[in-house]
């Protein structure tokens, strides 16, 4: 075909002639289409991505559920088939207290969280004739992973289906924006399952790892439920070392333990070591020092530590090891475990710099102590 002569095409499309009605239709049709159906078109395009993420989320949830059920069936000895009971656990929900009047909300949240933990523990124990504490804590954590994945899937599905049902594109926008963060969390949760099954230390365990090392060859005493402390000496200072009881998959009860130890042993300073979320661009395993109670979670433990420190006028110092969400809940990376000695030295330096001889220092290793004893 000879395209060198474009006169026929030029005549047909009226190129160069703006008054051609056919050409005007070609230009106006998409404009009209996008004005009236733009949002629907965007909804269709966005839906495809969200659907893909949703099926991934469902897959993560199903895989982790199956892994937990297989783990219980094959590694532990449950009384009968636990599937039905576990499926009921995954649907457990928590109704947060009314916060219109926030006064006194912390004890309410604390009561809610503790009763949920206690009930789950009892339910897990009831599935077995005999089960070790380590296995109970591992199953509890695995249950929490599956429940969170299920919740994420349900929330994403709810927003997606509501937007589709109402053909409401703006409703899908926040979901589209949040989805990468949700997927990052979901993928981290899915990847956390093997570490919890095998009882391996996770990134969040850096605080217990540091303090656990300081507690070696000391007499361990019970401070609170699943929480231990010991006394030691350094440079004429008395050290009180506190961490969750390892190698169980637990964070212990650092809030209550700090309250009772402060009342009993009257420390002059408190030093807390914890994992902290790194910002984009920061390296995993970066160590930073600061002030204040370094402890995550829902906030009740931090509240208790801040309150008791304020009551007794005790300064609180913090050392954190930066890591991503994924690093914090999956097998501890070498970059993080390699910082244990460095952090321990920084703790000793902090003690020397901020306390005087014959004073008492409370050192708290915050985090899940799975795979880390003392």
């Amino acid at each position, binding site marked *: 075909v000879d395209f060198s002569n474009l006169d026929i095409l030029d005549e047909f499309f009226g190129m160069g002639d703006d008054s051609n009605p056919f050409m005007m239709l070609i230009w106006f049709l998409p404009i009209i289409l996008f004005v009236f159906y733009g949002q629907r078109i965007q909804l269709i395009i966005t839906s495809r991505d969200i659907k893909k993420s949703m099926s991934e989320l469902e897959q993560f949830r199903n895989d982790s559920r199956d892994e937990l059920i297989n783990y219980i069936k094959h590694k532990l000895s449950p009384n009968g088939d636990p599937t039905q009971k576990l499926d009921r656990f995954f649907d457990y929900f928590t109704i947060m207290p009314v916060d219109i009047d926030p006064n006194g909300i912390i004890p309410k949240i604390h009561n809610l969280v503790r009763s949920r933990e206690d009930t789950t523990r009892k339910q897990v124990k009831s599935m077995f004739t005999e089960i070790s504490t380590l296995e109970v804590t591992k199953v509890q954590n695995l249950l929490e992973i599956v429940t969170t994945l299920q919740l994420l899937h349900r929330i994403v599905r709810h927003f997606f289906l509501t937007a589709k049902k109402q053909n409401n594109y703006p409703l899908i926008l926040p979901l589209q924006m949040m989805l990468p963060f949700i*997927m*990052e969390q979901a*993928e981290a949760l899915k*990847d956390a399952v093997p570490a919890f099954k*095998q*009882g*391996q*230390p996770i990134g969040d365990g850096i605080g217990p*790892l540091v303090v*656990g*090392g300081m507690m*070696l060859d000391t007499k361990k005493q019970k401070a609170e439920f699943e929480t231990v402390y010991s006394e030691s000496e350094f440079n004429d200072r008395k050290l009180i070392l506190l961490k969750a009881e*390892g*190698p169980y998959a637990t964070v212990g009860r650092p809030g209550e333990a700090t309250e009772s130890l402060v009342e009993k042993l009257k420390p002059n300073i408190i030093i807390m070591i914890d994992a902290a979320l790194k910002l984009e661009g920061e390296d995993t395993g970066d160590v930073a020092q600061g002030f204040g109670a370094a402890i995550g979670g829902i906030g009740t433990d931090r509240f208790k530590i801040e309150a008791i420190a304020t009551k007794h006028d005790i300064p609180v110092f913090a050392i954190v090891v930066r890591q991503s969400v*994924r690093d914090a809940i*999956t*097998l*501890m*990376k*070498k970059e*993080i*475990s*390699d910082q*244990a000695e460095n952090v321990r030295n920084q703790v000793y330096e902090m003690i020397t710099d901020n306390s005087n001889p014959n004073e008492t220092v409370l050192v708290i290793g915050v985090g899940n102590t799975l*795979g*880390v*004893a*003392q």
Partner: protein
Amino acid sequence: MSNKNEIITAYTLLQCNSCKEQSKRKFSDGDYVFKEILKCSSCDGQIIITKIFGESLTQ
């Protein structure tokens, strides 16, 4: 997001608390940090697990 081709292997680091000799092996079930393993073959000191960590191999 994790690298799809990343394989993470768990290792256990052992150290004698007397002669400080270190050895590294693959993680095995039942390992946990500060677990006392056995006596050191060279100095009869106590060998304990000092670290358990993951190292990644990118394919």
